[in-house]
């Protein structure tokens, strides 16, 4: 004894309602597959490790609490500039009095 298709469909419909699945007897492509996928971006972005705070950031963060440390690279740089200035090889001083004479006048 064969069961009519309409009756089978009714059964399928009831089953879908019960288990809250989509009723799609013809197997039409609705693209729900795409909506079900998880977003991959957040995981992909975390691949490379982020930048850690340097001495400069640490000094800034702890300055309010009266804590300080020595930034050797910065001190070396300042010392080097001092030496240049002492030998008269430093960078020229900034011009004062606005930027009126900037570039050639046409």
């Amino acid at each position, binding site marked *: 004894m064969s069961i009519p298709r309409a009756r089978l469909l009714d059964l399928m419909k009831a089953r879908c309602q019960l288990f809250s699945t989509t009723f799609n007897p013809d197997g039409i492509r609705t693209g729900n597959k795409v909506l079900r996928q998880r977003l991959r971006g957040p995981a992909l972005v975390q691949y490379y490790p982020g*930048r850690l705070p340097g001495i400069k950031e640490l000094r800034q963060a702890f300055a309010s609490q009266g804590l300080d440390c020595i930034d050797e690279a910065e001190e070396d740089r300042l010392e080097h500039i001092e030496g240049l200035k002492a030998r008269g090889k430093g960078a020229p001083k900034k011009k004062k009095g606005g930027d009126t004479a900037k570039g050639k006048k046409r």
Partner: protein
Amino acid sequence: MAMFRAKKLDLGCYVNIGVIRDHTKRKVFEAAEPERQALRYMIRNTTLPQRTRAMAQLQLAQMHAYTRPTQIRNRCIMSGKTRGILRDFKMSRFQFRINALQGNIPGVKKASW
């Protein structure tokens, strides 16, 4: 593309232009992913009118290359290399060997039998 790149370096690993570029692509892809998925949904949905689907196809194709996930490639975080990367350690095979032998990778030791 330089327009997507962070103004200040935000990487703590080995840095070369390839790594910066790849990191930028990852960030751009993350930002554009919802839009891409929405377009992909429209394209695959056969119940929508053909015209809408064709428009979505065009729009997806015209998005910037950096928004594409296929542009992303895993790179070695120790040397920036692209080939022979062990995904679990994010390292190229040679960097993995060096670091494993030095004992820098927890739980990894040389086996011999």
